[in-house]
């Protein structure tokens, strides 16, 4: 411990509890990977992937204060990159049965991890291209422009038959994504986020969120800094998209309809714009909650037949939730706070002081 503390001394102190917590997480993943059924595993994978993507979104929207709605588009870019470069070459003929894949790509196959990273980079590249025009715009214009971009991406992917196989999409993508992959990468990205946010660049991001004019007057280059954040966010999202593709094993343009972005919006709003731990918690709540609420779509909920329980109710509740949060709990679960050990400590103290009989238990948290 000592030497770690010493090396990062000027930065973050890695709390011994954090190490224990991480070990605990790894063990849990290991156990889950062994003993949990594929349905639960699929859900847990989704949680991790949504965490990654939401973190990417929160970096831009929450920490840098730029309201971007391009997630679905960046996700699509990452997903398609992985799909195109990992589909077994022999399978391609049958998949691209309307129009053969362009010879440029037809015979290139990359190892998963390479394709995944490539997806991240390509996605960041797109961020660079659209950031040019968009990041100079006033906030709400950025929202509509990024949303427009994600629609354009979808439409382009629908029409470029020989690269993306158009509407048919690409199937039989090797389903490599496992709990180890998704959670491994999620953890890495969480840690990177924490380190980034607590660096000089992270402070620059936050300063822009707080007050663009003051930030600029303090020598922070707005465009360059926004672009950095935007591209990193897109990179994360691209990675998430890649994992998503390798989880489903099939992609097509319809999946990346821009309403998909609203999922991640709900997550970051619920978790707290500008909170990493909040995002992580919210990703789990929303992903599992959505699955949980399924019973609302089933006529025979609670055994008794209620006419109100029929397909569609779940999404109504889901979107009503977003409204409730933004109207009444604008700061979300964490606000801009982080679930650090002393944060938990404080909370526990307050709870204890409230009723010293009950014995609360602390769980979860980031290294910070």
């Amino acid at each position, binding site marked *: 411990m000592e030497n770690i503390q010493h090396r990062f001394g000027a930065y973050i102190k890695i709390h011994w509890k954090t190490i224990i917590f991480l070990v605990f997480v790894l063990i849990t993943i290991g156990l889950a990977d062994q003993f949990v059924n594929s349905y639960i595993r699929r859900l847990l994978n989704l949680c991790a992937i949504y965490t990654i993507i939401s973190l990417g979104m929160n970096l831009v929207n929450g920490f840098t204060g730029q309201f971007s709605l391009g997630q679905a588009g960046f996700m699509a870019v990452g997903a398609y990159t992985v799909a195109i470069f990992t589909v077994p070459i022999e399978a391609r003929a049958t998949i691209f049965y309307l129009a053969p894949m362009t010879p440029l790509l037809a015979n290139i196959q990359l190892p998963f991890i390479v394709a995944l990273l490539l997806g991240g980079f390509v996605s960041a590249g797109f961020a660079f291209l659209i950031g040019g025009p968009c990041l100079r715009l006033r906030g709400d214009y950025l929202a509509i422009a990024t949303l427009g971009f994600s629609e354009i991406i979808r*439409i382009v992917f629908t029409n470029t038959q020989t690269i993306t196989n158009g509407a048919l999409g690409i199937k039989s993508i090797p389903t490599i994504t496992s709990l180890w992959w998704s959670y491994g990468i999620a953890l890495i990205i969480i840690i990177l986020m924490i380190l980034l946010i607590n660096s000089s660049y992270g402070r620059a991001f936050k300063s822009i969120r707080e007050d663009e004019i003051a930030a600029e007057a303090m020598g922070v280059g707005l465009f360059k800094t926004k672009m950095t954040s935007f591209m990193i966010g897109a990179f994360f999202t691209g990675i998430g998209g890649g994992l998503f593709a390798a989880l489903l*094993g099939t992609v097509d343009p319809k999946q990346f309809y821009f309403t998909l972005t609203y999922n991640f919006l709900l997550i970051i709003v619920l978790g707290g714009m500008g909170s990493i731990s909040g995002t992580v918690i919210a990703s789990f709540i929303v992903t599992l909650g959505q699955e949980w609420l399924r019973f609302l779509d089933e006529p025979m909920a609670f055994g008794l037949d209620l006419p109100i329980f029929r397909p569609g109710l779940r999404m109504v509740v889901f979107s009503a939730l977003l409204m409730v949060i933004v109207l009444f709990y604008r700061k979300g679960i964490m606000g801009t706070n982080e679930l650090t050990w002393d944060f938990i400590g404080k909370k526990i103290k307050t709870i204890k002081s409230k009723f010293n009989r009950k014995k609360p238990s602390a769980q979860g948290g980031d290294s910070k």
Partner: protein
Amino acid sequence: MKKTLALLLSLTLVITMVAGCSGNSAATTNSDVIKIGVFEPLTGANAAGGELEVDGIKLANQLRPEVLGKKVELVVADNKSDKAEATTAAARLIEKDKVVTLLGSWGSSLSIAAGDVVKTNKVPAVALSATNPQVTAGNDYYFRVCFLDPFQGTVMANYASKNLNAKKVAIVQEVSNDYSVGLAKFFTDAFVKLTGDPNAIVATGNYNTGDQDFNGILTNIKAANPDVIFAPGNYTESALIIKQARALGITAPFIGGDTWETNEFITVGGADVEGAVMSTFFDDTNPLTEAGKTFVAEYKKAYPDRQNIPAVTALGYDGYMLTLDAIERAGSADPQAIRDALATTKDFEGATGMITIDANGDAQKNGAIIKVVKDGKFTYLDTVTIQ
């Protein structure tokens, strides 16, 4: 006051959540019940189609609620016409509800999405109206009771050139719909082959799901002046396309695929879709088999108010009956055994005709029904068989 309201809202939410999960967890595996999973789009773009198939499945279930002396329980899951949902829905049915086999889904891409799940879990699935070759290709656990797009495309091409003796055809395809572009492609190939004229397709118009204004592409097509217009795609857009075409003074007949056969197609299209011709799987006016007759009778009993029986409902019926037949032949509710039984299906008498499953897991059907919209009804026109 706000706060309290908010608290109340969230409280109810939490309660429902808890109640819900408890309700779900109550669904335990019961030995004297055989569970069959149905995953269909009950909301979203494909909702109408999904419901029609579920009708058929439910009807069949009422007719034959037991197999191997055990009660058959249907577990229906909505896949929201969305791929990610489709995979989770399938996984949920298999892992959580412990179904032994699956039925569905309307919309090939949704079935394809679920393909990997059924494959990895080694649980068989029967697609009902998913006509895309990709559904069963390279997947030993996916079967289907309907014919394939290449066949359907050929059928319509034949109909266009032989019955309507068309020389020039225009195509309007829903570029964001795999079914539509696939069918358009197969039609084109077949039609070009038949006419021997590489330029037989004089115009192509693309649109996206949800579009409502087609005047642009239709004006182009009008200029190209085709004999026939082939417009496979969702019933909603197709109906609008035909309406707008007529409004633009296009008189060429419209022909399409099985997806047209929904009541919405007629309600939306109104008088303008009169004479629209489509290929489909089943004709309720003269069923090919005994099973077909019983199905029609039962359907009329169950839904006296409906004037015509959609083919996909018949396919839903067949899918269920075929599955139960397979379970019976397998003599057990073990997924693997059911799968093997399904794979070796021979001359099973379905409502839509005799079903024999081939090596790909597809139903060998060499006959398609041609129907036309007449007086606001889908009426039998012809049966096209291709060897």
